[in-house]
């Protein structure tokens, strides 16, 4: 410590940063911010609007009578409010998000600029086709890129998210089966599948049966064969799977599924591992949804919006949802009805044409990378994940031996007898300045920790992450070692307590989720008005 800093910290009132009490409750740049509704200046407005000219109401006598209850604020107050809120969020712009199967990659700002071009943003979906040829061309171009990357002959672009795309794919499969007079009732889903898969199958009117994983973390081919039958409509598979492993028996799986007269649906959440290098069509896949907000960098936006186009094999194309982009003599047009070529379409899945704003961003991303860049994306994603695997496998317990693809799975074996759970470990990571990895998913291993760095992390970033994770693991391990030494049998409460108390440096500590679920408070309500005893 320098003389200067010694002088400061030697001051009787110095304290250390953790114990500082402030008058405001703020902590330096961490500023407390109440709700909008608590900052109401009645009558105030952050938008200047002209007074409407006099008019005769045509509202049919159904004018709104009572106040709505919205607060009034000026623009500076609103900007400050949301700026302060933003400062309480972690983001990919701030640091690594090692979330498995989420593909939290950098969100290029070029994409934002392109999406905001007036020619894309200030265009109405119902304008005459002749006035929106560029928009239709963009969608068609995106479709071309997706068809080439997947090897499939067509892409349905309207689904608004990955889960929506799954619904689309499964509906086309059911429609195709019904068209050939084949009523099947079951869908097979690996135990390791994302929750949307069985939920989608149920929403499509199917019952769901789970296929166990084998000891290598892949779909048990024998178990699959045993469950296939005349009433299985499809297998829904993720590949690479949610354990980060490539289903190396995929060609046999596809053959078995097709031999049984069923369809092969692939959840494309992990496409980042193989984009530009492997085409799903060549793996025998019949339908595959792509998450534009994962593989193609459209921003996660705190939970949305997404976009989940579905690539379709030839047999499923006639059932694709409307609208279809079609090429006519006058240029591009939209087939919006179940007529003509689209007569067998499953119908509409969303209002209007799809998530155009995300299409522009994804295409800008694809064009920026090109065929060469996209292949490099997959390679760097897989390399980064394997690098972490090797850096972490000593301290953490790797779930499956051997190489992984773009994500690596650990289980909580390394935390045994430490009194620290996967959850506690993750919360300790928060104090270290990292968003935790995916926890407790997939369900096939105990206390899962699934890590996907993506290709946009530098080696330095990975090294820092690895050293922190290894350090925390060592800390947890030391609890066990001390307990054994002291012959206490169980972990000492105090040491594990540091993990249980985490996080301590965030704007809020651990939150009471039980209380939130037992007595849900889902909106602000004004305090009850005190009634005066009048009369």
């Amino acid at each position, binding site marked *: 410590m320098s003389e200067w800093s010694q002088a400061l910290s030697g001051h009787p009132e110095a304290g250390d940063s953790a114990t500082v009490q402030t008058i405001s409750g703020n902590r330096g740049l961490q500023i407390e911010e109440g709700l909008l509704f608590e900052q109401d200046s009645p009558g105030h407005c952050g938008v200047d609007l002209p007074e409407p000219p006099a008019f005769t109401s045509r509202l049919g006598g159904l004018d709104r009578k009572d106040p709505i209850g919205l607060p009034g604020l000026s623009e500076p107050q609103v900007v400050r409010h949301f700026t302060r809120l933003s400062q309480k969020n972690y983001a990919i712009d701030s640091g690594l998000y090692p979330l498995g199967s989420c593909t939290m990659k950098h969100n290029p700002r070029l994409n934002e600029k392109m999406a905001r071009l007036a020619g894309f943003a200030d265009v109405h979906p119902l304008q005459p086709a002749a006035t929106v040829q560029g928009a239709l061309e963009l969608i068609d171009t995106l479709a071309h890129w997706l068809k080439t990357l997947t090897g499939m002959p067509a892409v349905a672009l309207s689904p608004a998210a990955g889960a929506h795309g799954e619904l689309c794919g499964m509906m086309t499969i059911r429609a195709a089966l019904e068209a050939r007079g084949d009523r099947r009732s079951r869908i097979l889903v690996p135990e390791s599948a994302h929750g949307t898969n069985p939920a989608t199958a149920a929403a499509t009117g199917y019952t769901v049966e789970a296929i166990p994983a084998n000891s290598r973390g892949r779909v048990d081919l024998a178990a699959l064969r045993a469950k296939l039958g005349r009433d299985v409509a499809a297998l829904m598979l993720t590949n690479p799977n949610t354990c980060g492993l490539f289903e190396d028996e995929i060609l046999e799986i596809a053959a078995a599924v097709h031999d049984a007269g069923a369809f092969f649906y692939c959840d494309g959440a992990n496409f980042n591992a193989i984009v530009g290098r492997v085409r799903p069509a060549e793996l025998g896949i019949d339908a595959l949804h792509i998450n534009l907000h994962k593989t193609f960098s459209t921003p996660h936006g705190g939970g949305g919006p997404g976009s989940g186009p579905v690539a379709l094999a030839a047999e499923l194309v006639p059932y694709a949802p409307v609208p279809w982009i079609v090429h006519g003599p006058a240029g591009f047009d939209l087939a919006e009805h179940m007529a003509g070529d689209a007569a067998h379409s499953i119908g509409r899945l969303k209002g209007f044409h799809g998530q155009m704003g995300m299409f522009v961003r994804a295409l800008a991303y694809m064009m920026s990378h090109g065929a060469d860049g996209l292949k490099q994306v997959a390679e760097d994603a897989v390399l980064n994940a394997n690098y972490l695997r090797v850096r972490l496998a000593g301290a953490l317990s790797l779930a499956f031996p051997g190489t992984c693809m773009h994500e690596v799975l650990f289980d909580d074996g390394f935390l045994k007898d430490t009194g620290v759970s996967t959850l506690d470990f993750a919360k300790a990571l928060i104090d270290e300045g990292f968003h935790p990895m995916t926890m407790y998913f997939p369900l096939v291993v*105990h206390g899962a920790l699934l890590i996907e760095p993506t290709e946009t992390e530098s080696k330095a970033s990975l090294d820092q992450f690895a050293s922190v994770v290894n350090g925390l693991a060592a800390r947890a391990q030391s609890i066990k070692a001390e307990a054994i030494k002291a012959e206490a049998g169980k972990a000492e409460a105090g040491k594990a307590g540091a993990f249980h108390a985490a996080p301590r440096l965030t704007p809020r500590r651990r939150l009471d989720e039980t209380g*939130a679920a037992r007595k849900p408070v889902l909106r602000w309500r004004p305090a009850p008005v005190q009634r005066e005893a009048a009369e």
Partner: protein
Amino acid sequence: MPSLRFTKDHEWVRQEGDVAVIGITDYAQSQLGDVVYVELPEPGRHVEQGKEAAVVESAKAASEVYSPVTGEVVAVNDDIVADPAKVNADAMGEGWFIKIRLDDPKQLDGLMDETAYQAFVAEQP
């Protein structure tokens, strides 16, 4: 003294005459975590052994409660709907879920007794 029987899905059953009282075991509640919500069937409903009779939810998980016996639901424990924490506090007693009039009391003979259930729990990963 009414003896307890248990299922592999961690339900307990206590016979009181021709009525079976059912709940989830202490082990089950500890695995579930803090219970936040319980969904119970309507009295009068007929339930079958092995079929879903109720749902118990924690903040992070939802579990079906399968009826260990076949019969008609004669009573449900509204107390645990109002205060789900009772399931955690006293799973084997005040945290009971359903009372069922047994179609066939002999069904209970096929279920695990306390010793067998403790052994079963010890085997859990």
